[in-house]
């Protein structure tokens, strides 16, 4: 794109000044305070974690191809599923969308230069590195075989490296808190004056809700893990029944964080999907305020349902009843989002490009993930399904079918902004298709074997479950290939993709008013304050091969009355 005066006015002076090129050398990255570079480093980090834990998953699935021992002893299998879970949850899913995509996009969506505390932001990334290093240390020294849940008293008595791993999770918790804190302050203080709460893009709402959870819930995890370490080292008698402690108390503490953490994982994903559905339908999101408030509702209700992980744990029946009731209430805001996304498609102009394929795939998979939650929230059916593969399938549909799908969709959506180049859309869609097919083949059979009674965390299993496990293993490899292809297409685009303009998709939120890739300062020109979903204000300009503001083309004709932002 030649920097014509018009382009400069619209997208700023980038080219030589962009954040990737403005300085060079390894130090310029390691000591950067630029949210965009930190976002990219986070992205590389979490992708590494995803691949590592993904390889563990494939090893697990290969071992499970038959019910007897293939190549892992029971102890090795237990270590493998523990590390798969711990790395996926703590080092990948929790930071994935907020810390990688959110870091890059959030300040730009606000028209800001950076987050409120750039140094804290870099610190958060280094904490992520240290925390992950501790997890890997646990893996390389004595291993870890407690499951990612660290349930006591097994985690007190096992000889594996529980202390390294819990230190890792503890440090990763702080990384998460710092990101959340940063986002809250940024959204509160760095919005342009004219951008009220109801003019924020929905991705910001979801990140804001996520940040609230990160700040309020994560400290509880930190305290719990410290208590666990103290119990292991000093036998303080809080969780260990041998010293008068109560192992069920650990479960309460653990899930008080880890259930809200589920929403740390899924809320940002829902935010991404709200953006994608709207942009690629080229239509204002339907029911903005319902979607926005549903994020907040989910965040708050998410704090009140931890006991549904403990229906069979021996907690009192009355408590169990209350938790079941509140659990159902979380179903409503989730369903509201799905209905609103569908209504957004209605009468839109739907472009089936790669990010949109991921978004539609998300609705499908999250639909199954959410609906199967009903079986688990219902008490009598949960007693049967608890701790079986039904649960494994359910949370993978939400975490992988939901969060990972949304992450990939979001990456494909913002990739041209991040690197200024277009990916191969055909191969992108092939990747999406493989992920979709592989995912369903992997996890759908797990529902069936689960309700037939296959317990989770089993290294060996009975012959009647073999056919389901084999389908699942084949699916896992297809899923693996799909994810590899998806990332390969993205990486290829960085080096060989066609260069593109500032706003290739006609999106209306502010980050698209920067050049692609953005300049170091994000915006070194005056930003045009669009409503985030007012696509009628965008018009395609052939000369520049990008969308620009209609106002800019015909300055004196504001013929389209901008749809009024809804005030609830």
């Amino acid at each position, binding site marked *: 794109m030649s920097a014509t005066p018009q382009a400069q006015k619209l997208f700023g002076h980038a080219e030589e000044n962009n954040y990737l090129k403005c300085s060079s050398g390894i130090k310029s990255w390691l000591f950067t305070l630029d949210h965009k570079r930190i976002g990219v480093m986070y992205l590389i980090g979490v992708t590494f974690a995803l691949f590592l834990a993904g390889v563990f998953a494939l090893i697990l699935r290969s071992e499970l191809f038959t019910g007897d021992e293939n190549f892992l002893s*029971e*102890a090795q299998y237990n270590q493998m599923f523990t590390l798969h879970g711990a790395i996926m949850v703590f080092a990948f899913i929790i930071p994935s969308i907020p810390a990688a995509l959110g870091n890059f996009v959030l300040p730009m969506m606000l028209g800001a230069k950076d987050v409120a505390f750039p140094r804290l932001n870099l610190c958060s990334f280094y904490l992520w590195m240290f925390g992950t290093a501790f997890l890997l240390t646990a893996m390389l020294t004595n291993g870890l075989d407690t499951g990612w849940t660290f349930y006591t*008293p*097994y985690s007190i008595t096992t000889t594996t490296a529980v202390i390294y791993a819990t230190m890792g999770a503890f440090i990763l918790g702080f990384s998460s808190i710092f990101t959340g804190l940063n986002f809250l302050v940024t959204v509160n203080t760095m919005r342009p004056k004219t951008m009220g709460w109801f003019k924020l893009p929905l991705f910001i709402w979801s990140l804001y809700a996520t940040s609230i959870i990160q700040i309020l819930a994560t400290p509880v995890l930190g305290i719990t893990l410290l208590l666990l370490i103290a119990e292991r080292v000093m036998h303080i008698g809080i969780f260990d029944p041998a010293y008068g402690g109560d192992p069920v108390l650990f479960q309460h503490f653990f899930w008080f964080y880890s259930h809200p953490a589920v929403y740390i994982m899924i809320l940002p994903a829902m935010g991404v999907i709200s953006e994608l559905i709207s942009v690629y339908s080229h239509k204002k999101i339907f029911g903005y305020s319902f979607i926005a408030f549903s994020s907040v509702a989910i965040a708050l209700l998410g704090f009140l349902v931890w006991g549904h992980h403990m229906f069979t*744990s021996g907690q009192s029946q009355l408590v169990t009843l209350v938790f079941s009731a509140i659990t159902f209430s979380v179903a409503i805001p989730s369903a509201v989002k799905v209905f609103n996304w569908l209504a957004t498609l209605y009468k839109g102009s739907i472009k089936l490009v790669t990010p949109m394929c991921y978004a539609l795939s998300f609705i499908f998979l999250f639909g199954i993930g959410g609906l199967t939650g009903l079986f688990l929230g219902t008490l009598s059916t949960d*007693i049967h399904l608890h701790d079986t593969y039904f649960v494994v399938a359910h949370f993978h549909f939400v975490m992988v079918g939901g969060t990972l799908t949304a992450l990939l969709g979001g990456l494909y959506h913002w990739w041209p902004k991040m690197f200024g180049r277009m990916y191969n859309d055909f191969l992108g869609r092939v990747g999406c298709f493989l992920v979709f097919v592989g995912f369903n083949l992997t996890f759908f059979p797990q529902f069936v074997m689960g309700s037939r009674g296959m317990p989770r965390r089993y290294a060996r299993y009975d012959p009647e479950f073999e056919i389901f496990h084999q389908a699942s293993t084949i699916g896992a490899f297809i899923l693996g290939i799909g994810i590899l292809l998806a990332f390969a297409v993205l990486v290829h685009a960085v080096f060989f993709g066609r260069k593109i303009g500032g706003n290739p998709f006609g999106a209306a939120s502010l980050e698209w008013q920067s050049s692609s890739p953005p300049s170091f300062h994000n915006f070194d020109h005056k930003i045009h304050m669009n409503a985030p979903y007012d696509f009628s204000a965008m018009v395609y300009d052939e000369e520049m091969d990008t969308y620009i503001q209609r106002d800019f083309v015909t300055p004196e004709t504001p013929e389209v009355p901008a749809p009024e932002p809804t005030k609830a």
Partner: protein
Amino acid sequence: MLNLIGLLAQTESESLVPAAPEYRDGSYWFPEAASSFAKDVDPLFMLIFWVSLVFFAAIVGFMIYFVIKYRDRPGHKVEKSASHNTALEIAWSVLPGFLLIWFFVDGAAGFFNMRVTPGDAEQIQVIARQFNWEFHYPNGDATTELHLVRNRPVEFVMESRDVLHSFFVPAFRQKQDVVPGRYTYTWVKPTKEGIFRLYCTEYCGDSHSLMKTNVHVYNSQEERDQATFYPWEDETPIKNGQRLFNMKCSGCHNNNDVKKTGPGLGGIWGKMETLSDGSTVEVNDNYFRESLLNPGAKLVKGYANQMPSFQGKLNDDQIFWLRAYIKSLTPNAKIEDELNLPASEAREKVDTADGDKPAAE
């Protein structure tokens, strides 16, 4: 009838080589329904299933329809439509709520059936430990497989000797964690005879996936008595030891030389073992006794110190029987004559031969 095969298998269940039991198939979504709880779980599961399927079909149906109808193509433009509709949105937020209330109430009713034990239930004590189940019956018998009588409600009073476990019989649709440091309770009323699987469903360590056993349901008390009765005094110490081994040791030790969580105990008698500190020790009566009562004292190289002490949990008779059985697992170990006598006579012989005799080699 498959039941017949099941019954045949039962009589063999506690013998040296358990016959492979015949498990019956269930429906597509469920294992066979064999307790009174199936009516609380299965129909509700299917109700939620069909309601979910209708919603899911509608969501995906509308999605596909919209994507085809409103796909971006030359000449197609975004049509004007409302950007919100409060009445519609409130409707689709509130109306599904009634279905949720239905699920909740129905599920809670079933749950209370599963958690409130009827007064006339018989009590079975359940002891869970890594990686074995032990069931104690009202008449004093104990087994590693669970034996029940059809149509008789039974309450399980469960305790764990080490970490968390969970008692799960898919065919009964019943599950309850077993928590160390407290008792937990659950109950069932089996409605069908046959053999069913019992799993541990709370991760409990290395051989978690092997912590499973069988549930046998009989038509009458007599059959159950036959299956659980064991005349300790009339059987030989070796046979008694084997029964104890199956109940208390087999979770971590094989009776051959294959390594499990702990070393295999076949063929070890008289062998020199290398310990974790590099020294060696001969496996004999005293080492056996010490390993049982103070397992960490002389740890064989390559194994973690994770065996619980059996101090106070086994009486002298039981230690004697176990020693007899372990010894019998080594083909050329010398077996004293009394180990092949009925236990009551063997005890007399040992007792009269004076206490300080370290059971000669």
